[in-house]
């Protein structure tokens, strides 16, 4: 009998031992975060005039944006290329992207010295600033993501609005409003989906341009004018592995059977992308003759080698292997390597490569910085768990095919 997949809120106990541990990590992060707001950035971080940016930008923001690339890559695949098969992964990817970008925005905010002015870029524009472009793109994209998520909210609540007490009389009106909203969104959703992809391409690449202005301060292994291209390529590369990784973890966590067929299909597309990325990277190193810096052994050369080996070469071999890419374990590890690779790449670009001329010592993140970064990741995981328990996100096999309006939705009806 054919299975029909339908996104459904998952009904499970929220707290497991692991979840409690993750909650502890999150709370620890929040405590240090409080310290940052009370005593200032200098008290909690190891940042100084030599190293103005640390892991809150390098990991939370730069890597955060890259790892949320699953959102736009799956949207492009599912909606623009119209591959219906992959529809089941769009919602989890969308949720990851939405949460990811929300935390990117929050990380930016806590890293800003004058966080109360975070709205300034909206009204004070500087066309030459890459950061401005990234900021605006991320802001708009975040809005787009929220709009893309709205149909899931309406789906969850239409026909089920049940406010308690005296609010009960509003139930009908709210239900009507939700329906109007749902219909409007349905007609206009394609605008947001395409915008989402365009915006992603723009800011993913511009995130690379960000460090170009550091000029001589950046190690030549990474300092290249094609940095935006490399960033875009690596973001596209990490999109599907992130979805695979996440899907495998959440199905394990919720005791569901992984949709291997779908994940395998995604995996098949990763190999060629990695190959393009690797080629670009090698061509860059050869043309600029920066391989000479790989001949000496230092932090920079080791990190560059690790980044390329772990992040590109090994998973490339794994994804191209028929045997490995058909098993959940193989897919999991290959995806994990790509993710680690991109994470390292962002870390390298923003922190390892940044070697200012007047540095007195090198930068290493403080306990506070680690705590907040880990805390944010933990919070994100917790929120993901909460969301999939409230909203219909994860597709669960159903015995009966639903033909009602609020079943699986294509976008053009």
């Amino acid at each position, binding site marked *: 009998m054919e299975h029909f997949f339908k996104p459904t809120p998952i009904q499970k106990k929220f707290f497991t031992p692991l979840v409690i541990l993750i909650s502890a990590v999150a709370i620890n992060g929040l405590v240090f975060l409080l310290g940052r707001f009370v005593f200032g950035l200098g008290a909690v971080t190891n940042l100084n*005039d030599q190293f103005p*940016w640390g892991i809150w930008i390098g990991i939370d923001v730069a890597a955060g944006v890259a790892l949320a690339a699953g959102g736009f890559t799956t949207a492009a695949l599912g909606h*623009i290329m119209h591959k219906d098969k992959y529809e089941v992964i769009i919602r989890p990817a969308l949720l990851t992207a939405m949460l990811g970008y929300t935390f990117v925005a929050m990380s930016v905010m806590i890293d*800003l010295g004058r966080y109360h*002015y975070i709205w300034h870029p909206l009204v*004070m*524009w500087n066309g030459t600033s890459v950061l401005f472009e990234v900021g605006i793109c991320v802001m708009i994209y975040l809005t787009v993501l929220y709009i893309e998520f709205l149909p899931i909210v309406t789906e969850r609540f239409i026909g089920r609005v049940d406010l308690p007490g005296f609010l009960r009389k509003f139930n009908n009106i709210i239900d009507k409003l939700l329906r109007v909203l749902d219909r409007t969104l349905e007609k206009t959703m394609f605008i947001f989906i395409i915008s989402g992809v365009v915006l992603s391409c723009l800011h993913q690449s511009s995130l690379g341009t960000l460090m170009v202005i550091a000029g001589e301060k950046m190690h030549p292994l990474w300092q290249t004018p094609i940095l935006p291209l490399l960033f875009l390529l690596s973001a596209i590369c990490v999109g599907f592995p992130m979805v695979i990784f996440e899907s495998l973890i959440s199905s394990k966590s919720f005791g569901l059977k992984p949709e291997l067929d779908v994940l395998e299909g995604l995996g098949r597309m990763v190999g060629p992308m990695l190959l393009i990325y690797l080629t670009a990277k090698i061509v860059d190193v050869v043309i600029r003759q920066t391989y000479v810096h790989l001949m000496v052994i230092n932090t920079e050369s080791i990190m560059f080698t690790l980044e390329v080996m772990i992040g590109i070469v090994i998973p490339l071999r794994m994804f191209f292997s028929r045997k490995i890419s058909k098993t959940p374990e193989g897919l999991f590890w290959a995806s994990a390597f790509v993710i680690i690779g991109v994470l390292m790449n962002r870390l390298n670009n923003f922190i390892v490569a940044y070697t200012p001329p007047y540095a007195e010592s090198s930068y290493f993140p403080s306990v506070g910085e680690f705590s907040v970064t880990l805390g944010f990741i933990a919070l994100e995981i917790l929120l993901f768990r909460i969301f999939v328990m409230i909203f219909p996100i994860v597709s669960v096999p159903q015995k009966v095919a639903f033909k009602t309006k609020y079943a699986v939705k294509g976008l053009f009806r």
Partner: protein
Amino acid sequence: MNKSRRNFLKTSAFMGASIAGVASTKTVKGAPKNILSDDRMGVLVDTTVCIGCRKCEWACKTSHNMPTEPIEKYDDRTVFEKRRRPNANALTVVNEFENPNGKFPIDVKVQCMHCDHPACLSACIVGAFSKEENGTVLWNGDKCIGCRYCMVACPFQIPAFEFDKAWSPDIKKCDFCFDRTKKGELPACVEICPMEVLTYGKKSDLLRAAKEKIRLYPERYVDHILGEHEVGGTSWMYLSSKEFTQIDFPKLGKNPAPGVTEAIQHGIFAYFIPPIAIYALLGGVMWLNKNRKQTEHGEDE
């Protein structure tokens, strides 16, 4: 079907137009300011004359209402044991370097160079920096959001940040005493300098004077004016008896620091054509795929 297609086109057109509108406003600059006028001012720092009295440090702090030790304390020369950099508590510092071949050590004042094409200005997310007509690169605290991208961008590693302040920390850097020069006064450090190490004047005059000095005393100076060409030229320029890398200046090219970045930016956003093109392309692909699917569907049924 037909309706939805028209709808699609209409909405796309609207989106495109609005983005193009954004683009056009984006390129509009503020009031026309001749930031590279021939009359812009500068300072010529002759490091061969500097005696390291550090009076400039005192004057700077005093005129900026920053806490400072009394002026007598600045005779202390033990501070030179360590290299110092401008920071949130000192907008300018003097460093001393050994000079094995000369009678005296070499003293070098460090502060913002006030670039002709400032990287901080180009990089700043909210445009909190401005290049004034008299050469000053000015920071505006009413705009700054404290992202510290200017610190990443600055090729001379000058902007400092009040990391210890929890509420509304400032970016701190030399402001070329903008409030003083506005009133026709000299920058505080220039005014106090006993040896006139710091010569304030029109940049063009200073360059001529510097070249004349090099011509007249070739054994005293290296034939190089730091800041004449570095990163596209700076308002503050230096003369030295040694190669500038030996007195702790970074080796920099002649191209303006924000050049490559702005070229990339303009490439990606050339009149917003590339983003709109991608948008249109993706829209087309989406529409085609959707049509194909529906025809297949129709045939199936």
